[in-house]
């Protein structure tokens, strides 16, 4: 049991904990904060996988920008509402059985999975390696990303403006 394994256990535990808290907390803002916990733990897992740049992007985009979007989404809605839940024994049991079946199916599928030898040297000049890959090998997907971002921006403007004019 080396340090990497312990770090992986802690990080995956906090990631799952964040997800469970998000489902079980009552207030929407607390749910948002538990999602941030999951995002940050995933960034830690990226660090373990020698993907430093992706880890920083995870923190910058997900726990920074996407969280802001979610926070604004909450503020636009009636966020004082509390989650009222009904308990149903039969449904809980069925969901439990489903979770178990899913677990064993996935476990059986990935038990003897072999990915081939892992990539080495990813931690050396990580950002530069990513840059060379994107701008020398994956040029067309990279330019497509700009189109996707443009469509997202325009679509959001069209949708939000329509909503705003109805309010007037």
């Amino acid at each position, binding site marked *: 049991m080396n340090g990497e394994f312990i770090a992986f256990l802690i990080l995956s535990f906090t990631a799952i904990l964040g997800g469970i808290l998000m489902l079980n907390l009552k207030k929407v803002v607390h749910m948002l904060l538990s999602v941030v916990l999951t995002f940050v733990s995933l960034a830690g897992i990226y660090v373990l996988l*020698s993907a430093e740049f992706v880890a920083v992007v995870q923190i910058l985009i997900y726990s920074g920008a996407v969280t802001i979007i979610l926070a604004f989404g909450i503020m636009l809605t009636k966020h004082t509402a509390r989650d009222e839940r009904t308990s149903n024994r039969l449904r809980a049991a069925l969901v439990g059985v489903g979770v178990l079946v899913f677990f064993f199916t996935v476990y059986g599928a990935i038990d003897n999975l072999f990915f081939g030898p892992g990539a080495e040297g990813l931690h050396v000049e990580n950002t530069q390696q990513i840059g060379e890959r994107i701008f020398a090998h994956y040029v067309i997907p990279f330019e497509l990303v700009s189109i996707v971002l443009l469509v997202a921006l325009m679509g959001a403007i069209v949708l*939000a403006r329509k909503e*705003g004019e109805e309010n007037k």
Partner: protein
Amino acid sequence: MDSLHIYQNSYTFIVVFMFVAILLPIVALSAGKLLRPHQPTKEKMTTYESGIEPFQDARVQFNVRYYLFALMFVIFDVETVFLYPWAVAYEQLGIFALIEMLIFIVVLFLGLVYAWKKGVLRWR
């Protein structure tokens, strides 16, 4: 393999800093709670002891316009993230990468122009 261990071990510092950052407010606030006197009166418990009475809930419903600003921030944040690997690897890539990045930025700039023309940036 050796440099991988150096890479992983250097993150021990970050873990130490993280623990300090988490423990510092917890220790400071709980130590303060143990030390300070606690004698609340009704007058002390008001939000502003010598100000106006607060009314309404602090978390009001926001205008939808704020959402557009947040969304544009996310879009251009993602654009900026692509600039970092480009800038770091620029020495190895040369002039072709510059043209690629120019196309990328121009396409997103069109989005900014569209938002501008539609009056999203103007506050009414």
